[in-house]
């Protein structure tokens, strides 16, 4: 095997131009239609890749791609596929960058070893192994980049979506937007409780207008938040219950009777104001000199 693999660098040396040209052609034939700039970029990348592949092969043509000689090729592929993942290429397009290299190399081998079937088969097998491994590496890097993007977005979403708003002295509002899962509930709960301590509030209004679905789990999370706020000495009101959600809650048999619920945030705010001893009066309707509260 060692003797047969040593041929591959020579083939590359001899037929580099041919392989590269065919490969570029192949890529353009199979992939989607590219703009001129994209084509130039793909050309440049392909030539660069072939060059680094050649030099890696020259130094170590057997023993897989995990050796230090292959670091350049690996870095190039990881970089390429993560860039493509961010640019919105599909996994197929990214992987076929490497896999479309097979045919040009095979045909080069064919020309070289056409008279010697055994050598041809050996070399072909070597190339297949090599290209497959490079392809796997590409796909893995692609996947990893995508996962990083998803993780970052999840984190940003978590930070974005849980503001605690101070409506009045002693009254907080917590507008919830999006589905409540356990992780978000934890963040919401923590934010709310810390805000209660900070502002010394007595009332917290949880507004669920922006929560698309309330199932038993979400309801349980809500009740937990309410219970935790109560332990801190704050009264919780739930507002923004849409008609469908009211129906769902009753059909599911969720017991929200311990919590004050209101249809709109305005109603809940009114209740909180009254309970804390405030009063809202229209200025022109009030007797002269009466305060606006």
């Amino acid at each position, binding site marked *: 095997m060692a003797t047969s693999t040593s041929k591959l660098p020579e083939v590359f040396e001899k037929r580099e131009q041919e392989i590269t040209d065919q490969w570029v052609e192949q890529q353009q034939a199979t992939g989607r239609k590219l703009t001129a700039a994209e084509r130039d970029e793909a050309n440049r990348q392909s030539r660069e890749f072939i060059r680094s592949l050649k030099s890696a092969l020259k130094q170590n043509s057997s023993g897989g791609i995990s050796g230090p000689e292959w670091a350049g090729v690996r870095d190039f592929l990881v970089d390429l596929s993560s860039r493509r993942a961010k640019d919105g290429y599909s996994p197929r397009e990214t992987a076929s960058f490497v896999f479309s290299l097979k045919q040009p190399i095979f045909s080069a081998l064919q020309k070289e070893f056409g008279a010697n079937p055994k050598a041809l088969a050996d070399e072909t097998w070597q190339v297949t192994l090599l290209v497959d491994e490079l392809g796997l590496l590409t796909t893995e890097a692609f996947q990893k980049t995508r996962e990083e993007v998803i993780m970052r977005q999840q984190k940003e979403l978590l930070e974005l979506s849980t503001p605690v708003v101070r409506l009045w002295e002693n009254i907080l509002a917590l507008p919830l937007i999006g589905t409540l899962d356990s992780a978000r509930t934890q963040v919401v709960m923590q934010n709310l409780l810390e805000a209660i301590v900070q502002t010394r509030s007595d009332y917290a209004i949880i507004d669920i207008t922006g929560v698309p679905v309330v199932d038993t789990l979400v309801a349980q999370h809500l009740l937990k938040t309410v219970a935790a706020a109560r332990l801190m*000495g704050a009264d919780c009101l739930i507002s923004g219950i849409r008609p469908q959600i009211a129906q769902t809650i009753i059909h599911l048999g969720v017991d929200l009777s311990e919590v004050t619920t209101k249809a709109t945030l305005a109603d809940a705010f009114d209740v909180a104001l009254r309970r804390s001893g405030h009063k809202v009066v229209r200025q022109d309707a009030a007797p002269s000199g009466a305060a606006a509260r």
Partner: protein
Amino acid sequence: MERIPILKMGEFLLVTIQVDMHDRLALTLQDDLTGQIVKHRSHGVLIDISALEIVDSFIGRMLASIAGMAHLLDAETVVVGMQPAVAITLVELGLPMRGIRTALDVEKGMTALRGALLEGQDGDTSSIR
């Protein structure tokens, strides 16, 4: 022996828990507190747990039983100063302590107690009528 001090503040009793609770200490506290309620004829008890970083089911049950005893002796109990992390833990443990009044700090607890006592008096008079 270790003891938790019980301070008399006007008509209320103030208990500040600052050390780790264990069975013996809890029993002593219950003894002392019920004795003091009767002795001073107090109608309100404030239990300050703001110094507690960790509250387990044992303390939760102890607080509930103290509240129950105080109630039998005609005194309202308010637990004040719970840390956010503690509140979350208790809820996750499934111990929302429904029977106990809570307040953010001693000041608010005092206001809540006064309110509760007024309410109680109204209730008494209406039942007499």
